[in-house]
């Protein structure tokens, strides 16, 4: 399954292995990158893609293996070395200092900058690059003021400014709108015409087919295939990646909603900066209904979920759960009322990386029997609960005692999902539950949402993916700048119309 290319490769990694406590992230992986080539690195969550690239850019040291650049063996001890070799990486979690400006971030760490910085010159050069590659940025803005898409442009400019010849992009489109992804594709093509090479990590077939010349598939830390893009197909790649056939559609029982579970009446709330985030939002969720929330990220979705889970105060309006007024309820009151929450930010709001998988799984149930009696918790019962959930939700972990932070993003998400589904007694609030997940994990997340609905619970499902919404949700509401633009049955929702509503057109 490995196709050969006889020209001398720009980069050759051979026999790379790397283990983390309890996890073999890379197992004797070989990789070749040729000049002017765009290589896609495809694989499920936890397949070892990011680890392999972190080794190439010097952040991790491999346990075994060699790296050659232009036919010569190199030793990459740290990011300093990889930068000097012309390798640059845009990490999934951007490497930008939030409190610093765009320009400061672009030159950070560059040895050849003068001792006393000449910001005027840097600004001129950056603006020139930004024009040439059509990457618009505000040079003096601080990073925290920028949207995720803008931050990514800063990251790319940073590599271009350093004259990187080999660009590594870790899931570059995971956080972008479709328009932004198209622009990124243009930038990559332009860089290719200038002779630069790129490796991008992804688990989206569409991107592999659109962006890449060649594709390498990793599964469970091993290389399973290396193919030229033109000679393969999405279904072949999906099979290689997951190791089995996939179902692309979801069966669910016919839609027959029951009584109203959640009702929001003219709810207003502010965001963290004190600006109006929700403006007179009125929504209902009935038992056995999945209400999909469509909208571009940052239009009030996060605040909506926080209001419903008691994490954010209402400024005005009312929130009723099973006809009971819960407008001023605390998070614990909402948990006790059976509202479960899969938050947008998994690592900071949904899980504790330094606690074990078992502790994370028990985090909502530990207060009551069977996990505790009075003030004492019963560790054996937590472990046995954890073992059951690990099995049922297919969480890939060395064991229930492993620290959660050592799991891949997809398995952390599965852990949260397993816990929240257990805690759900009336309503499940799921915010971007499949973001950053591979096909297999996405499929199982969607399945779980539909199961909750079929059991007669209500589900609030926030997503940016229109196709996913139409497929999974029963009813779709569109949020734009904190307002509900429209509510419609998903059967009547055409993707084009949703797209326009999401952009604030045609209320």
């Amino acid at each position: 399954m490995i196709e050969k290319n006889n020209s001398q490769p720009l980069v050759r990694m051979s026999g790379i292995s790397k283990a983390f406590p309890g996890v073999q992230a890379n197992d004797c992986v070989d990789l070749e990158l040729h000049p002017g080539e765009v290589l896609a690195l495809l694989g499920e969550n936890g397949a070892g893609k990011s680890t392999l690239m972190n080794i190439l850019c010097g952040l991790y040291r491999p346990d075994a293996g060699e790296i050659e650049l232009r036919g010569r063996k190199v030793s990459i001890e740290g990011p300093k070395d990889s930068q000097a070799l012309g390798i640059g990486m845009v990490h999934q979690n951007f490497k930008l200092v939030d409190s610093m400006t765009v320009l400061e971030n672009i030159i950070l760490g560059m040895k050849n900058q003068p001792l006393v910085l000449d910001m005027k010159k840097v600004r001129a050069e950056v603006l020139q690059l930004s024009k040439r590659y059509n990457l618009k940025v505000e040079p003096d803005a601080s990073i925290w003021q920028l949207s995720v898409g803008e931050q990514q442009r800063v990251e790319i400019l940073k590599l271009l400014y350093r004259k990187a010849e080999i660009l590594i992009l870790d899931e570059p489109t995971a956080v972008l709108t479709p328009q932004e992804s198209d622009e990124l594709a243009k930038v990559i093509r332009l860089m290719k015409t200038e002779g630069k090479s790129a490796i991008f990590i992804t688990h989206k077939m569409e991107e592999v087919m659109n962006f890449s010349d060649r594709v390498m598939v990793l599964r469970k830390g091993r290389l399973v295939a290396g193919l030229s893009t033109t000679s393969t197909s999405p279904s072949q790649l999906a099979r290689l990646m997951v190791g089995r056939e996939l179902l692309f559609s979801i069966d669910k029982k016919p839609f027959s909603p029951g009584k109203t579970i959640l009702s929001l009446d003219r709810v207003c709330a502010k965001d963290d900066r004190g600006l109006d985030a929700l403006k007179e939002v009125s929504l209902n969720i009935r038992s056995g209904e999945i209400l999909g929330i469509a909208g571009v990220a940052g239009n009030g979705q996060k605040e909506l979920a926080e209001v419903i889970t008691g994490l954010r105060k209402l400024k005005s309006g009312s929130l009723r759960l099973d006809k009971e007024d819960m407008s001023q309820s605390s998070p614990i009151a909402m948990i006790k009322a059976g509202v479960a929450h899969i938050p947008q930010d998994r690592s900071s709001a949904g899980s504790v990386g330094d606690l074990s998988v078992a502790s994370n799984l028990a985090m909502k149930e530990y207060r009551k029997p069977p996990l505790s009696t009075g003030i004492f918790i019963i560790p054996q019962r937590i472990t046995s609960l954890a073992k059951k959930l690990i099995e049922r939700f297919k969480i890939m972990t060395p064991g229930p005692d492993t620290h959660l932070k050592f799991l891949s993003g997809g398995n952390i998400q599965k852990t949260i999902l397993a816990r929240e589904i257990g805690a759900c007694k009336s309503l499940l609030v799921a915010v971007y539950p499949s973001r950053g997940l591979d096909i297999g994990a996405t499929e199982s997340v969607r399945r779980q949402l539909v199961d909750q609905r079929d059991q007669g619970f209500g589900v609030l499902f926030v997503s940016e993916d229109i196709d996913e919404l139409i497929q999974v949700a029963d009813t779709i509401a569109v949020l734009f700048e904190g307002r509900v633009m429209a509510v419609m049955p998903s059967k009547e929702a055409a993707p084009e119309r949703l797209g326009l509503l999401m952009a604030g057109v045609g209320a």
Partner: protein
Amino acid sequence: MDMITSILAITIRAGTSLVFATIGEIFTERAGILNLGIEGIMLMSAVTGFAASFYTQNIFIAVLVAVAVGAAMAALHAFLTVTMRANQVVSGLSITLFGSGFASFLGQRLGPASNNFRLVGLKGARFMPASLEGISEVPILSAFLNQDLLTYLVYILIPLSWFFLYKTRPGLWLRSIGEDPQTADAMGIDVIKAKYFYTILGGVFIALGGAHLSLSYTPGWAENITGGRGWIVVALVIFSMWNPARSLWGALLFGGINAVQFRLQASGTNIPAAFLNMLPYLGTIAVLVLMTWWEALSKKVGAPAALSQAYMREDK
């Protein structure tokens, strides 16, 4: 006018050691290291600096000894917190406890036999005010220009360290380390080396603050010569918003209240001396609380985001 000039002169003298230590701690904290050993380092450098000045009668050797001791203690803190990844608060407190106790011990052992081996009551070399001809006659200005060499060094140090931090390449790197060491590391900056360097550099400045106390402000050695200044500095760093240029205001605040209460005591008021001695601390804390509260309301930048967190590259 004479009174204002004299209060101002005392204020500046009293503030000098605070500015040194504040700027030292700002450099340290900008590298993400919280050093609560300031009090201990100041006491140790004050006692060793004075002992050296007594035996050599050479003020520069005295300063060198104080600085070497401060650098060594800061290096110990760096080793414990950066390499051994010990808790920074615990390590800093230990250094202060050790420094206070050991300085007191040295004060009773380093002296000559003729003085019962004690340092108290001895005279060593000291910094003298250095002034230009005629300046001492000019009101206000003479308060600034009739000071010792270390104070003149402070005048240069404040703008220089501000310029370094905000306008130079290493300053940019330093700021990034305290905010986001992962990013700094990924950008090819040697985070570990920098943390050592700036912790030790901070120790040097803190030591200059301690040396100023025993070699100029109150020349000689006395038990607890710092009077808790090391703790005031921890607060002044916050008040300065980690900006060296603003260290001036905090130091003047503390020094100013000190100078005013000196005046009051000298004028023979009925207010108990213990109460007056307390005023500089009370006033500094009151103003700090108000200022910090106000700054928080106006949403200005706070502490370096990664302050007091240990850093290791492959941590997840």
